[in-house]
């Protein structure tokens, strides 16, 4: 299994970095090979121009950026989703990780 690259995006990459830590922990506990990154929308745009990720998750507070990112990754067939508000607020790394992996699997099929 290859490493799953999960990209989290919010306004400044601050609050998503909290979630990132928890997702990494959850991945470690479950033995899942996942690379989780948290970036600001600008940094994310730059990164996506250079490399591919497996899934892109957007913080609910900047959900208006979804269409912008959908446009950016349209050719690369990367699934884009807004993180559930409840999961985001609880910083539920386990659940968001599960959602991310599910999106990746659905995308691959």
């Amino acid at each position, binding site marked *: 299994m290859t490493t799953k690259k999960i990209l989290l995006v919010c306004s400044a990459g601050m609050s998503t970095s909290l979630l990132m830590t928890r997702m990494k922990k959850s991945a470690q506990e479950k033995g899942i090979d996942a690379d989780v990154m948290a970036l600001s929308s600008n940094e994310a745009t730059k990164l996506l121009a250079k490399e591919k990720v497996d899934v892109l998750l957007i*913080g*609910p*507070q900047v959900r*208006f950026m979804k269409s912008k990112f959908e446009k950016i990754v349209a050719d690369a067939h990367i699934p884009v989703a807004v993180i559930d508000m409840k999961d985001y*607020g*609880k910083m539920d790394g386990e659940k968001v990780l599960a959602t991310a992996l599910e999106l990746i699997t659905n995308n691959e099929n």
Partner: protein
Amino acid sequence: MLEKVEEIAGRIGGQRHLQSLRDGILLSMPLIIIGSIFLILGNLPINGYTDWLADIGLASIFSKIVNGSFGLMALVAVFGMAHSLAEYYEVDGVSAGIIALSSFVIVTPDLVSNAGSGISYAYLGSGGLFVAIVVGLISAEIFRFFVQKNFTVKMPEGVPIAVEKSFAALLPGLMVIVFWGLVYLFLGLAGIDNIHTLLTNTLGKPLSVLGGSLWGTLVIIALNSIFWFVGIHGANTINPVIQPIWLQNTDANRLAFQAGKELPHIVTNEFMFNFVWIGGGGATIGLVICLWLFAKSKNNKAMGKLTVAPGIFNINEPALFGLPIVLNFKLLVPFILAPMAAALITYFSMASGLVAKPIGIVVPWTMPPIISGYLATGGKISGAIIQIITLAVTIVIYYPFVKLMDKSQLKEEAQEESHELSKTI
């Protein structure tokens, strides 16, 4: 009704010109903060320190550094805005940025003296911010128009792509620069010798009434809270429009401070981010402390533990979405009132002279309160004390609402427990 607010907030947040404006200002932030560090270093609150600095010749170097970093806000912003907008249109951002930078200098009036000519620092910094916005956005629009219309130099086959690319920006860039040259010419013919004063007076005046006055500030605080209440990043949507005003006020204070004059403004960038929105939008520091100290229900206790640490660094998404505050009418009232109270208290204590005004040091918004107030006022204890007071006030404002919410949560949890119990029996 709420859906309408959400839709409007989303649309503003996603608007490409406003996004570019925000990106442009964001690009200048590192320089502003670096400049602020030297502003602090040059003015440590120690007796005799500033005189000593001047004696050993460091004072002038520090102020040179501040002018060359903090003072280049508009120059960096014009590049950043054009860059971001061009990238949005998927045309070359760096070329668009450089051409906008050139256009900005072209429309800025020269200073001529016996020693030679140049342009004033005043317009490279916050004083030129409005021209930077207009020039940056319009330049990028003209640039992408010609690129998209394929109005570029065509190279014969066999020319390396890198070479062709370097010529691609040539004709569109020429059009942009000719455009601004003509603007400068016609403004001069019309008797307007300075586009900066023109734009600051027309665009800036009404905005500064909103952004610089106490009443306008209260309106913005209410809007910010309402946007966050529907779950849209409040600061992200409102700031592009109003932050230029706050930064201008910050910079005006900086210049006055460096010149040893009275500080002209209270409502500045730091006033909003460090004094009003303590703990994040909605001044939620009071909320998370109430949860952390006083909550009895399991859910709220857990939320208290989760939200208090990021809250100290003014990050409140966990509270906003986890508690949640978003669409939680039990918390709407304090969520609007607490930051307003913080604004009023801070404003009047600064206006009356009890508390030092912010001297133009831009403190990162993630700096914890008490420390941030001390730094923003240039090392005045009063700046820290007022934050302790507003912090206490936000706790008092949130307390009854948290208690009420906690009570109903406790009831729910008790019901659930008895439910589970009856199931097992």
